[in-house]
């Protein structure tokens, strides 16, 4: 495993030991085989122990793990005939925001999401998943396209936030996000959103004002990054860990706050250990959500979606 998080170190060391034993056991030594089984069980136990009790700051690390599946991985595994559509028709194509037509479990859909990239080159190309106004305007255009042809919309959210840059500000970053949210709340087609990694602030809600919002078990959703929050409220970015606690940004918090509809379980040890399993689980959950929304009148969908967000006032909290 090329990438591991600090708190995963004992597990990774144990796995390295198993790997070593595997090489030794080529001779077929029965004692070594027994030892390997024992150690593997221990790894599983440690993973379960660790991942059941991740603290919010550890969740932030997992949600940002570079080995976690990204938008393109989901699309490759879940969507047939994906046909990417480019551009905002005003200024540029923003590769931090990918979207297009495709077939998901038999449904023809519009699928849109943030792409972070998988290596240095693609990360730069996708601007680390931080969209500029063109990205939000493209998303808006595609949602309207879906509306026009009665296609369900699926969004996959994975962004640390909207890009803070000179050009982005000059071209109306705030306005682009506001209009994108407005369009989320306007369309008369089924709309399912899944937060698969980082749900960073305005850049995330721009895609997530949906009928059903799903969230992976170790994903995060927040009004500001823990680092940003710490540097403002504690006047020191080093307090990010405390800020992560205070912000209540885990999927479990989101469910008890009534912000999301379902938490999607991740494979043991997080989505980055078994991406295919995580992707399949998200696929199942999206399909189930679409099934629930199928057949509802567009006007009803829209009215219910609005009603849901109007009620986001923290009522019903214990």
């Amino acid at each position: 495993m090329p990438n591991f998080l600090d708190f995963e170190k004992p597990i990774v060391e144990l796995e390295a030991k198993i790997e070593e034993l595997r090489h030794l056991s080529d001779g077929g030594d029965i004692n070594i085989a027994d030892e390997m089984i024992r150690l593997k069980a221990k790894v599983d136990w440690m993973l379960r122990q660790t991942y059941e009790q991740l603290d919010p700051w550890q969740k932030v690390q997992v949600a940002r793990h570079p080995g976690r599946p990204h938008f393109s991985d989901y699309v490759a595994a879940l969507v047939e005939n994906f046909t990417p559509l480019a551009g905002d028709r005003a200024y540029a194509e923003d590769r931090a925001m990918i979207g297009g037509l495709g077939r998901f479990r038999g449904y023809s859909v519009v699928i849109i999401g943030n792409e972070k990239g998988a290596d240095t080159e693609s990360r730069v190309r996708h601007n680390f998943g931080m969209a500029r106004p063109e990205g939000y305007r493209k998303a808006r255009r595609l949602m309207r396209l879906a509306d026009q042809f009665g296609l369900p919309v699926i969004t996959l959210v994975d962004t640390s936030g909207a890009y803070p840059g000179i050009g982005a500000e000059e071209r109306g970053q705030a306005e682009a996000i506001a209009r994108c949210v407005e369009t989320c709340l306007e369309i008369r087609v089924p709309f399912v959103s899944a937060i698969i990694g980082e749900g960073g602030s305005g850049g995330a809600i721009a895609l997530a004002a949906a009928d059903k919002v799903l969230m992976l078990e170790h994903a995060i959703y927040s009004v500001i990054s823990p680092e940003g929050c710490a540097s403002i409220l504690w006047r020191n970015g080093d307090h990010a860990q405390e800020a992560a606690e205070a912000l209540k940004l885990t999927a479990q918090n989101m469910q008890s706050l009534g912000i999301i509809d379902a938490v999607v379980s991740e494979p043991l040890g997080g989505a980055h250990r078994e991406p295919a399993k995580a992707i399949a689980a998200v696929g199942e959950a999206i399909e189930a959500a679409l099934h629930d929304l199928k057949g509802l009148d567009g006007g009803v969908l829209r009215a219910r979606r609005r009603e849901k967000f109007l009620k986001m006032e923290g009522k019903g909290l214990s």
Partner: protein
Amino acid sequence: MNWLTNFVRPKLRALVHKAELPDNLWVKCPACEQMIFHRDLDANHHVCQHCDHHLRLGAKGRFEMLFDDGAYQRIELPNSIIDPLKFRDRRRYTERLKEAQNRTGEPDAMVVAHGRMGGMAVVIAVLDFSFLGGSMGITVGGALLAAARLAVLQKAPLIVVPASGGARMQEGVLSLMQLPRTIIAVEEVKEAGLPYIVVLSDPTTGGVSASFAMLGDIAIAEPGAIIGFAGARVIEETIREKLPEGFQRAEYLLEHGMVDMVVHRRQLRDTLIRILDLLRSPTPPAGRPAPPQVEPETPARGTGAGNAGARKSRRR
């Protein structure tokens, strides 16, 4: 005791008071650094008489300046849940909240009133920077929703004057949810066919600019106001470049096509009245003499007559 109460205490008082008096009566302009007498400041709606810099103006000042004869009625705002996350940074959120309430005498950052402007009924909501940086939490979201619904009920335009650093971090993701919530609020006003006008004042940034503040049918900005999504420091740290002159200022946004106009506070009320009148009274007033009929010189052909007819009917 006598010596202490009769001699020492007055001396101490005098010392303290000497230091306090100029602070209360004189305000230093943050732009030109000249001193402004408080009465002049109030009379000038918090615009510096030396350099025209627009200082921040609270809810009360805004209402008195905008409504006819400074007469208005405030509305009671819905109560919301307090401190849903039990948030604590270096201090408890409840403490910060209480302190802001005591200092401002307001329950939260948004204040809503209705009254008349140029004789027309209007609802005005002010997001006041002096209350926790004008940050938007659940209560502010609820206040804007109440303002929007009052406007729809009264068939009145909604004018919003934001001054805010953005979403209220202490309410976490629930403050993020106020983005869609406030956007639905202004949609309700627009769907009722009523004008929604935003007066962007200093500063309007973050989650407030990324929601209701940037969706005005008409966007007016106050001179010199900082308006944007990301803070200047964050941008500088991300791109490691110096920001251009006047970046994120109202005039810069006007130049980049992001606002309709930059209006001096002195002209704000008249401008708003003029816009509302143009939007709300599209036909000539009753009693205006009919326009003279122009007889066509040549016999009218089919298309020409049709056009004239269409023009006439549009006037009606």
